[in-house]
Every structure is written in structure tokens, then in C-alpha cells.
């Protein structure tokens, strides 16, 4: 028990030391460059962040940005899983969908954003972009997961006349699960990045991206850094919650 506590303390200490090291590098960069407009100091960013958090509009902004990312991610996960399962099971469907997925993956995000600006209202652009960029990731992983399902297990289930739903639950889902969690973790990271990018360009009301744009317009670099930190923290929180949920799922299964 004592050993565990000591080990825990060592891990925490190590993490704090690593964080301090990088803040130190940041501080040194600030000293070398010497101009707040290019690289603000950790202190001025902290002050900017403190001011942001104090404002009532901050939480509203964060809430609506989370809402957009969450809707985009949810759409991409649900549709990615459904279309991925169908494509994994039917090669013709896979062949039809594959060129579209390759095209989406290699198209610059900015092209999609510009097209989306013409098609959607400003608040829906980030949702669409988040969905569009994350959907191929989920789809590709689910297809790969289905292709790893052991045909010998399927043959066994067929001969024992196991119902299709039970085959899905006991053979397909456990085989897909590692691919699904990897896809969702990647999508969470990417989802935040592209949604905020889309917000910068579409200027919806109450959006982190819109605030980043204003900070840039007013040359308020500490605020720019502070909002960026907020995005990083939110993205890490999303990933952590999912990692905890998936861990619980694995324990239950």
C-alpha cells in the first residue's frame, strides 16, 4: 500500500516537473523574443485566461462550441459505425464508398469550409466540417475491424445456428471494439481542431473560433493563447472521458 502511494506520488511529481520544464522553455522563448505580440509570457496568458473565465460569456461560448463539436462527432460516429458495418460486410458497398472516403481525406479542410459557408448557416458550418472530417476515420476503422473478424468463429456460429443479433453482439462487436476506440480517440482530437478552424472562418455567435478571430484582429496575443489553451484542455477532457468510459465497458464485457 505504502509502495503504491510512493509510486503515485513519483508519477505526479514527474508530470509536474515535465509541465514546469515546458513552461520554462516558453518563458525563455518570451525572454529571447521579448515582444508580447509574438510570444506572450506564461504569466500574461494566465492573466488573460483568468479574465476570460470571469466573464459570463465565456461559459456560454464554451458550451456552444462543445455543443457543435459534440453534434459533429456524434453524427460522424453513428453514421461511421452504420456505414462501416455495411461496407465491412458487403464488398460492393465498400468499393462504392472507398473513393469518396479517399477524396474527403485528401481534400484540404479549407476547401470544405468555403463550400460549407455557401451551404449552411454560420453555426452549422463547424458541425458539418467536424462530421465530414471525422466520418471517414470512423468508417475506415470500423471496416478494418470487421475485416479482422475470424471467419472460423463465424462458421462455428453458423453451424450452431446462432441468431444474427447474437453474432453481432458476441463476435462482431468485440472484434471491432479496439478499432472503434482508436477511431473515436483520433476523431475527438481532430474534431476539436477542425471545428474551431471552421468557427474562425464562419464566425458563429458564441464560439471559441470567433473569439480566436477577434483576438487576432485586435492583436491580443495573450487572449489568442488563452483561447487556444481552452481548446487543448477541452480536447484532452473529451479524450479522457471517453478513455474512462471505454475502460469501464471493457471491464463489463
Amino acid at each position: 500500500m505504502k509502495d503504491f502511494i510512493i509510486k503515485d506520488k513519483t508519477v505526479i511529481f514527474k508530470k509536474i516537473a515535465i509541465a514546469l520544464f515546458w513552461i520554462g522553455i516558453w518563458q525563455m522563448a518570451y525572454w529571447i523574443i521579448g515582444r508580447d505580440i509574438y510570444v506572450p509570457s506564461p504569466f500574461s496568458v494566465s492573466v488573460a485566461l483568468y479574465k476570460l473565465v470571469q466573464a459570463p460569456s465565456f461559459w456560454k461560448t464554451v458550451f456552444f462550441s462543445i455543443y457543435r463539436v459534440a453534434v459533429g462527432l456524434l453524427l460522424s460516429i453513428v453514421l461511421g459505425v452504420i456505414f462501416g458495418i455495411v461496407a465491412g460486410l458487403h464488398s460492393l458497398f465498400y468499393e462504392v464508398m472507398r473513393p469518396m472516403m479517399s477524396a474527403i481525406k485528401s481534400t484540404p479542410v479549407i476547401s470544405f469550409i468555403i463550400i460549407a459557408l455557401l451551404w449552411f448557416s454560420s453555426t452549422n458550418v463547424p458541425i458539418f466540417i467536424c462530421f465530414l472530417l471525422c466520418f471517414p476515420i470512423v468508417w475506415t476503422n470500423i471496416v478494418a475491424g470487421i475485416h479482422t473478424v475470424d471467419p472460423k468463429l463465424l462458421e462455428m456460429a453458423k453451424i450452431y445456428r446462432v441468431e444474427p443479433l447474437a453474432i453481432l453482439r458476441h463476435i462482431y462487436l468485440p472484434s471491432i471494439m479496439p478499432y472503434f476506440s482508436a477511431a473515436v480517440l483520433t476523431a475527438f482530437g481532430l474534431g476539436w481542431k477542425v471545428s474551431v478552424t471552421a468557427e474562425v472562418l464562419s464566425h458563429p455567435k458564441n464560439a471559441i473560433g470567433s473569439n480566436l478571430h477577434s483576438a487576432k484582429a485586435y492583436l491580443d496575443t495573450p487572449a489568442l493563447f488563452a483561447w487556444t489553451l481552452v481548446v487543448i484542455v477541452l480536447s484532452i477532457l473529451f479524450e479522457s472521458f471517453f478513455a474512462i468510459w471505454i475502460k469501464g465497458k471493457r471491464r463489463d464485457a
Partner: protein
Amino acid sequence: MSIQLQDVCKAYGDFKVLDHFNLTIDRKRIHCLFGPSGCGKSTLLTLIAGISAPDLGTIKGTDVLKFSYVFQEERLLPWRTVKENIQFVLQSHKDKHSAHTQVQRVLELVELTQFQNHYPNELSGGMKQRVSLARAFAYAGDVLAMDEPFKGLHFDLKRDLMDAIVAYWQNYSPYTIFITHDVEEALYIADDIYMLEGPPLQIKKQVYIPVPHDVRKRDPDSLLPYRAALLARK
């Protein structure tokens, strides 16, 4: 009622595994497909079970039958426990309590009750094979088809399982077909031994053993003439 194979042909590309093969299987005897590796025995069993389809010829009498199949490899779900692996093939059982009783009964039969909550990767090869047998017993198919079911098992347990198979056959009289290349296994439980060669698969000789199973157990010498007949092929 019998399972009848008439002029069955099966080829993989130009490689003929079965060429106008004929066989009749009934419930009155335990049938053994006895022959060297690679002669086409496993292909024959997969055709009977409907896992693969013949290129030509007909297989009659299998349409409505349920198959309890023991594969050469165990084919267990790695993410499910021993108990859950057996429950997996009992999904359609309406009565959960009877399914549970069934699982416990077969686990006892293969002496794995204390390992029921273990995962396949925590078991030895022989134990996994026993789970696969238990799954086949629990399903209670009309046909008990086994592809080298005693592979990797030590002698005492093998004998207990062979007794269990005989007892199961005597109680429920399923069509029972098993593949082996072990003379002792064939002599201990089979009534009808098809000595096979190939490919293409052919019945070289058929050895019928009319000795009741309890006599075989009591008096192993009663099997001596049949052993000679089996070994005479060489």
C-alpha cells in the same frame, strides 16, 4: 432415416478431393472416418454438415438436422469465459434456467466446472478442446460431428470423454461421426470404421465392430481381431 451421400464431388481448383463418393450414415452405429492426414476426411465432414457445398452429387437427409460440431481447432470466443462460450450456442433457448442447468451438466461431464469463469487464453490446449466438446454436448444436435476431438488429451481423460460420447449416443441416439487417425480411439468407440485413402477420397475398407461398448471396456482382448484388420492396411 439416414444421411446419404450420392456421387458427391468436391474439388479445389483442379485438385479433386472427392470424386463420385458414396456413403450412408445411420443413427444405429457410431461411425468413424479413419485415415491419414490430408486424405479428405475433414472436407467430407464439412460437406455433410453443410459448411461447404458439393460441386456435384447430392447429400440427402441433412436439411432438417441440427449439427453439434467439434472442429479441429477449438473455435472459442477469446473474449468470453468458458461458461459464456457454451451459453453462446444456447442463445435460442427460451428457458434460461434450463440453459444454465445444461451448461453446468456438460461442464461437469468434461471436468471443467471449476474453470467455468476462466477465459480461453487461461486454459491449456486440451482444456480448450474439452470446452469445445462440452459446447457440442450442450447444443444437443441431431448429429454429433467431430473432427479429431481427442487431439491433445491425456489417456485417462480421453477415455472418460469417449465413455461420455458413447453414453450420450446411447441416450439420445444422434447421428455420430468422428474423424481420427488413432487406432485406439477408433476401436474404443466406433461401430463402423471407414478406412479411407486419397485424395480423391475413397473407402478402402469398412470394418464393422459388433462388440458392445461395455464389453470393449471390460475385455479389451475382444477387439484384437478388429485391431488386426485395421493395422492390416499397412
